[in-house]
Every structure is written in C-alpha cells, then in structure tokens.
C-alpha cells in the first residue's frame, strides 16, 4: 500500500488538552502532521479538527480508531483528496511601489485570483484561497517582485458525502449504544471468509 495525502476530520468536545491528546497519537508513531486546523462546527458545542497527513490507508485507519478512542472525541473520518472539497488561505505582503510601477504584477494577481486586503503606502497585502499548488504558484510568481512576507493557513475541508453532524450527535446523546458501525474489509465477502 502506498502513501498518499489523507484528510482526517475529527468531531470533538471543546476541551482543553484535547489538541495535545490528538497530536501525540501522531507524534508517538513519528508521523508528521502536514496541516492541522481547529474550528467550530455546524453545532455550537462541537469542535472540529482537520488534519492532513501523508500515510497509507492502513495506518490512517488505525490512527482514526486511536483518535476515536479518546474520551472527548465523538467521531473521526478519513478521506482522500477526491472525496473532499478543501481550501487553504494565504497572505502575501509586497512593497506597494513594486505593484504600482509594474503592471505585470497586476496581471499575475488577476491570474491567481488574489485580492488586496490592505493597501498602504509602503506595502500591500494580498490574499488567495485555493489548493496548495495555487497558493504556492503565487509565491513563485511574486518572488521576483520583492515578496516581503508569506503565510498560509491550515487546510479546511468538507467531505463531499457528509450530511453534517446533527443526526450523528443525536445518536451520541442517546444512552443506548449508537447504531454506528465499524467497517471491516472482509465483511460481505463470504466466499473469501469461508474458503477453508
């Protein structure tokens, strides 16, 4: 099994120390977190982590089970890039006179869909959102024009197939064991199972 980019979405309680509990699940196994974002979710009291790592499916599945095992974690999902819509936000600081003087820059910005957030005498800050290649493309393009500063946010992602967490939460709130099932790759492959 080869490694690829996976986005892990974790629904949790909003609890101090939980970030650490989740982070050490990766660091303990010497797995690098490419990007980590924490944010509110569609539900008031439920927090949402979006974590990006490069791993094999087998490892990601195990990691998600370890994450779900944490008392304050409601649910962890993992998805490949084609199962999600995602964005990253980037900010670029460039000297204003460079932009004013050089028309090329303007063209570049149009091309990359950037917009100006602040324009001051000495510098201008542009913003783009998009995939890694897009935000990185603009850095390369701006470098010759004295790019002063660059920063990029973590990935935020929405799972295409997700119906949100409202229904799930109801299950979690009822005292009975939830109907949530844990999948196994061998299930429904009876031939495989019963070949003695």
């Amino acid at each position, binding site marked *: 099994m080869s490694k690829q980019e996976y986005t892990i979405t974790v629904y949790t309680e909003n609890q101090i120390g939980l970030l*650490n509990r989740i982070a050490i699940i990766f660091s303990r196994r010497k797995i690098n977190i490419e990007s980590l974002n924490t944010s509110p979710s569609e539900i008031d009291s439920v927090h949402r982590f979006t974590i990006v790592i490069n791993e094999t499916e087998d490892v990601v599945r195990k990691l998600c089970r370890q994450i779900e095992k944490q008392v304050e974690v409601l649910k962890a999902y993992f998805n490949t890039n084609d199962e999600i819509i995602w964005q990253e936000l980037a900010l670029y600081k460039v000297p204003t006179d460079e932009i004013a003087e050089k028309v090329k820059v303007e063209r570049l910005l149009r091309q990359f869909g950037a917009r100006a957030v602040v324009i001051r005498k000495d510098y201008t800050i542009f913003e783009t959102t998009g995939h890694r290649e897009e935000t990185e493309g603009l850095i390369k393009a701006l470098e010759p024009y004295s790019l002063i500063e660059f920063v990029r946010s973590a990935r935020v992602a929405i799972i295409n197939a997700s119906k949100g967490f409202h229904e799930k939460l109801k299950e979690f709130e009822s005292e009975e064991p939830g109907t949530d099932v844990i999948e196994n790759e061998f299930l429904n492959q009876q031939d495989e*199972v019963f070949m003695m």
Partner: protein
Amino acid sequence: MNTVEEPEKKIARSAKTIESISGSEAVLKALIAENVKTIFGYPGGAIMPIYDALYDYKDRLHHILVRHEQGAIHAAQGFARASGKTGVVFATSGPGATNLVTGLADAMIDSTPLVCITGQVFAHLLGTDAFQETDVINITTPVTKWNYQVTDAIEIPSILAKAFYIAGSGRPGPVLIDITKNAQLQKFDFKGYTTCKHIRSYRPKPIVRKEYIEQAAQLINVAQKPFVIFGQGIILGKAEKEFKHFIEKSGIPAAWTIMGMSAIPTDHPLGVGMLGMHGNYGPNVLTNECDVLIAIGMRFDDRVTGRLDKYAKQAKIIHLDIDPAEIDKNVKTTIPVWGDCKETLPLLTELVNKKTHMQWLQRFKDFQKQEEETCIIPELNPINEVLTMGEVINLLNELTKGEAIIVTDVGQHQMVACRYAKYNYSRSNITSGGLGTMGFALPASIGAKFGAEKRTVVSVIGDGGVQMTIQELGTIMQFNVDVKIIVLNNNFLGMVRQWQQLFHDKRYSFVDITSPDFVMVAKGYHIEGQSVSKREHLKNALSTMLNHKEAYLLEVMVGKENNVFPMVPQGCSVSEIRLK
C-alpha cells in the same frame, strides 16, 4: 397572596438540603458515594486540604500510607486486579505526581481501572514554576485513559463521577484528576453526588453486530483445528463463566496470555497452557497449524505473536474485543466481533455446535509431553542440588492447593511462576504484563491483600525487582499487611543475563547485582523471615511462611545461571520456539 408565598417556601426548603462544603470534602464524599473504602496515598503540600478533610473521614475511608507514590499506585493496581474494583490513589503535586507515571503507564497498558487524585498548586500560580509545580496533565496524557485539571470546586462532584465512570467502563484504564489547592479549599454549595452513566462523546462498548457473530459461529462450526487464545478481557469483562461455557460446548482447546491466566482454572481439561515468549510448546507451535484462531479479549502483543509475518498465516482469525482500536491493529482479522465478551460470548455459544476435538487436543498433549521431558521435569525435579525457581513454585502449589493469589514482579521468576503456578480462581495471577515494571510486585501484593482480604497473597519477586520498591516493607509493617514474600535470589538480573548468554556471547554486562541480607532487612521492619538454600529445608520453610499469622519474607537461593525455557527468541516465529 398564596401564589406569591409559594416560591419563597420552595427556596427555603431547597436551601436546607444544599450544604456548603469545601472541594476537599466533596472529593471524599464522592469516594464514599462510589463505594471506595481504601485509598493508597502519600500527603504533601498541594494536597494538604484533602488530607485535612480526610482526618474527619478516617472511620469511613481507610487510607494506606505508602513509602513512595510509585508504591501507592502499584498497590492500587494490585487492589483493582484482585477485587475488580477501581483503585484510588492520592498524591501531591510535582514529585508526588511524577512518581505516579510508571504506575499509570503500567495500568494503561494492562487496562487497570484507577482514579488518581493529585494536588496541584493554586490556580493563579499555574505556569509560574511555583514550588512543586509540574505540568501533570501534559506529562500524564499519553499514559491515562482520561485526565482533567479542576480549578473550581463546583466541578468536583461531576468530574469525579466522570472519572469513576471512565476508569471502570468499557476497556478500563487509569484516570488522573489534578485539583488545584484553591479548589480544594474553596467552599461551594454541594448539591449531592450523582454517578455518571453516560458521556456523549464516549462509547465504552461498541454495538454488537449479530451478522459477525453468525459468521464467526459458522466458521467455528466447520473448523477442524480451531484454537482459542484468550487474554485479560475475560477477567475484565467478568465473563469467566460465559467463556467456560463457550469452550466446553465447542470443545476447543484454549491457551491464555499472561494477563488472561486464571480466567479458567489452570487444570481445566481444555486449558492447554500459556502463550508467548516463555509460554508452552504446544500453544505456540500449534498457533501456526490451527485453521481457525479465536482470539478473545487479547491484543496480539509482540511477546505473544513473535514475528508477525509468520504468525498464524494459515488460519482464519476471529477477534472478540471491546476496543475497536485493537481489531486489525497487529493481526488482520477475518471476522471481527466487536463488543463486551460478557454479551458476545453467550450469543456465540448459542450458535456453535456441541463438539469435541479429541485428535486435535491430543496434538497439544503430544507437545506437552516433549516439553515435559526437556523443560518441565528438569525444572520441577532437578537432579543436582542447585535449587530451581520452578520447584519453589511447584511446592507452593502443593501447599496452597491453587487457592492463593500470586503476585509476580518482572523477569525470570515471573515467567517461571506464570508457567508453573496453579490457580483455581479468577483474579489470582497479578503481574505487570504489558509494561514489565520491575518493582511492581511488592506494593501490588499489599493492594491485592486489601482487595481480597480473605485470600492468601503470595508475592514472588526476584532479587533485582524487590530492591526497586523494598521501602514498601514499611507499609507492610505499619498496616500489618499479611503478605507472604518469596524472594527468588539468583544473584543476577536473571532475564537480562539469560539474553546476554544466549544472544550476546555471554558478555554479562552489569547484571551481577549484589543484594543486602533480605532477612535482616525484613527484620529491621519487624517482619519475620528466613533464607533457604537447601532442598531439604524448602518445604518446611514454605509452610512456615504460609502458616505464619503475619507478613513473612522467605528468601530462596536458586541456581545462578538457570535459564527459562521454552523460549521464542525475539524476531522469530512462534514455530521456532526453543526447548533449550
């Protein structure tokens, strides 16, 4: 007028039932509500308010003052393992709390339910490097099932309720609650204590899926050479009876891991022995021959599986476990049966055919015979005059008739004790399995005695391990704890020496350990004892120990360079188990 008066009356009535108490008192009230009777602990600056409150609760809460916080937590582990209840520990901030870390790691890996309460500096001093301040929550995060810092007394009842619920439910584990000193002192309106039964983000038990149970039963019913391997999950799930019914109906031979030991009596006709590195010959070899491997409440530790890519590759694997994260973690499962084995085993038993597997069982017996000739007989009935660890355990079996709780430390003596000890009842084998914590046995045996007061508790320890927590003899002395201590002294750190002999060309690097006169040390603590080195004295010495009304220390001088066999060398397949 009436309508105006009524609400006032209501307020007056409820005000009567609400009392103002300190956070410390709330802690103790919570413990009483959780039916805790014994606490193992050690006081200090940041936990003083709780100890002050404890002064008034002496009649309801029995506090055992240990000699070191590590002793407290191992004792609480021993208590939990012997009784099936949650062990409770008190320790102060800073060094008191950091001294708990080894025990927390041990309890985490061996799924032992504990609630540890640590004091912490005043909330306004957090993060200022105050006296005896350490970041206990972050230090203990990887080694606790859950931990929480309380800075406001109002939280105490609900947090402790959560702590006990989390520690004891699902797959049990240690919980640490760190309470700042201001919260311990703070008065608040105590509205009573309600035990916790549900946390929305916490699923202690996965849902039982009937289709998996049906598939598992079908697979078992067509199996020619089925083999059950079981772990502590049976004991933790209190499913000993259900398990016995299952193997007796299906007629499947069953082997235990070190942690699963004593879940069925060791002389059960279907019990074929211990798995793992120093387990029995048959169970290890036949793991690679069975056609269906049924793993129940065990986690395929590397000491059990040996080389994973050569482990049970021919077999279909059914794995019953309460913890979803264990399924497929080390060994790919054909049929996972998620759930509490107390629920899943009866469902499975109902669907399996009544059967016997005489020929298959005979294969285990054949291997047993070979093992007896090469390993067991020389260990239990040695021909030369040098004493072996095995004969001590063998005589102990004879004298206790399998009724005793045996607490072992870590090393050669542990493997020998677990290989040869006989048990009639569950919760009789208490050892540090997953973490391999030397120094575990002496304090754990203290806890075990409090957890099972009517039972004989024998702690079997090596000369290395006993010196790691020997200070707990003080606890035994002060509280008159009736534990029998056998020190198997080979004047070596025996297990490391064995590895150095076998795998490092006998380069004995720092395994030659000098010991004090253990009998004299015990005497210093007013504990009776003797040392034996001759076979003719051994039986008498053991009976003297067992018949003594109080704690007793028996040192047995055993062969210096004896090895434990069989052995699956590290990195080898279970089929490559060595008999010598």
